[in-house]
């Protein structure tokens, strides 16, 4: 699929970039669209699963088990299976199912951890003051779980942005299409452009979530340095 590259070929040909701004913009929107829809659908499903897991504790292990299996299945393998099913085939549906399935474990674990992390005293106080179950969930539990939930959304989003490059193989690639194009033509410029923009998009979305969390958790700001965590390395997955 490739032939030796001419030694003189530069890493980036800027004239190619200039000539293809429309393609690059289209790739950006496709990448963003697929990421946003996948994370949104994944979040909706995970939220429901997490609420079930917290309400009926015994369901957590099996639910996390299924999500772990989905998470461990290589993306290409999942594409391979899904493409073989006519309803999915090459394109959006296959990409969406694969991308969503990778967000589930991350989001489920973080939402459950966030709900479990609500201070027991606050929860007991809410019950004792006469909150109904659903109202406590909406007004006390979920707001207090926001930092953990956002942490999960950040990991899921950054991971999804990276995986979208791979969905190029089933025809829905965003920046992956650029990379794939460069790969098949022995032409490094689109590879570099696609990679750099994909990383930039991941970082931008990550920063967006940090800002969003800052906005919706004013109480955590008030705590200031006491909230800590800046030097806390996240442990792998």
């Amino acid at each position, binding site marked *: 699929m490739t032939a030796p590259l001419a030694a003189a070929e530069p890493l980036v040909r800027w004239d190619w970039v200039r000539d293809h701004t429309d393609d690059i913009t289209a790739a950006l929107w496709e990448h963003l669209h697929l990421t946003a829809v996948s994370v949104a659908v994944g979040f909706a499903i995970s939220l429901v699963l997490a609420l079930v897991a917290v309400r009926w504790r015994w369901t957590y292990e099996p639910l996390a088990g299924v999500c772990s299996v989905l998470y461990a299945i290589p993306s290409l393998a999942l594409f391979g299976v899904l493409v073989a099913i006519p309803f999915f085939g090459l394109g959006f549906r296959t990409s969406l199912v694969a991308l969503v399935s990778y967000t589930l474990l991350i989001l489920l674990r973080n939402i459950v951890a966030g709900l479990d992390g609500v*201070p027991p*005293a*606050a929860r*007991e*106080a*809410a*019950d*004792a*003051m*006469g*909150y*109904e179950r659903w*109202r406590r969930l909406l007004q*006390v539990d979920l*707001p*207090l779980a926001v930092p953990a939930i956002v942490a999960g959304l950040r990991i899921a989003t950054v991971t999804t942005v990276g995986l979208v490059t791979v969905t190029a193989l089933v025809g829905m690639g965003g920046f992956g299409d650029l990379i794939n194009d460069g790969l098949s033509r022995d032409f490094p410029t689109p590879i570099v452009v696609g990679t750099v923009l994909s990383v930039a998009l991941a970082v931008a979305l990550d920063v967006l979530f940090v800002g969003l969390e800052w906005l919706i*958790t*004013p*109480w955590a700001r*008030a*705590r200031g340095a*006491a909230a800590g965590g800046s030097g806390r390395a996240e442990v792998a997955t």
Partner: protein
Amino acid sequence: MRDRQASAPADVAVPVGAPPPVAEIGAEPGPPADAGGQVALRLDRLTKVYPGASRPAVDGLDLTVPRGELVALVGPSGCGKTTTLKMINRLVEPTSGTVWLDGVDVRSLPVHELRRGIGYVIQQAGLFPHRKVRDNIATVPRLLGWPRRRIDDRVHELAELLDLDPDLLDRYPAALSGGQQQRVGVARALAADPPVLLMDEPYSAVDPIVRARLQDELMALQRRVHKTIVLVTHDIDEAIKLADRIAVLNVGGVLEQVGPPEDLLREPATDFVADFLGEDRGIKRLSLLRVGSAALRRGPVVGTAASADEARQVMAREGTDWVVVCAGDRLRGWVGADELDRVATVADAEPRRFAAVVRADTTLRSALDVIVTSRSRVAVVVDDPHAGAAGASPDARYLGILTLDDLAEGVTG
């Protein structure tokens, strides 16, 4: 809690512990006869067996809480005191037995309505970290759907009542000290003006100095609001200080004794209660009694114009080597026997200031401390708003003297 000043007149030697207005134990089942009357809360053969537990956490507990009183549930860990408290607002559902609130079985009310009508204060306050202080306080009024104006007014009223700086209202709980958080917790519990307040170890997470201050504030608050309060604590001194009545529970939720602190200290019903109150039961009783309630002695008193001989006669009669010098009822100081040789009247001897003075509202426990550290083993009792560490002020009014014997009399008499 009762205002002890009012119930302990200064001239009564052995006061306190008036008989309770209501029977302690309700024997017959069914709603109390005086629904809406004297009894705010009645626990009727209340039992809780947790699933899988071999013995009950609470076993057939009968307890009556008169309106406007503070009842403390005390006992070692595992005695079911917190379980009992939580059965009142149904955070824990009883296995059998009934809780009557104002003559109504609490199970007959929707649980959320029931809880909105009962204040609840817990250890470390349990404030909502994501809500400002004002929103924490407004929690129950909002659940009850009060109009915004009324909620705002109520929040400010409570801030004033609990001595919370209005600036604190717009802070988040994390920015508050432990004591402030606990005050906000009480304000939140009182927000909808519930007649009954449940407090679960409210002060166990704050340091002793703050705890003492919060306890004093609660006593002052209760004098104004007259709530029916059930307080769970493992701290017997806290119970003695705050409670009108103490219920001592043994492991397994067995009620050992219930009664006013004075009664328990004077006559513990069982060895368990005696042990739980501690070996210094007598000393603890002293902290319930005020100097003004003890039988004060006139002591070796002379006027400023008294001659040296008169002073010597008073000393001989009283068996002391010093006399109190008074101008009318004003305390002028004391003069020792060896200073009388060179003078005509005691005033010429330049009476010295008493260091060991106590006021009528001092507890006998503090008086004991003054007596054992004084040179003459005597505390001088004065009516003196300005008395301080340096002793009596010039306008102190002399009331009498207090000795160790008098203290013992106060405890045993």
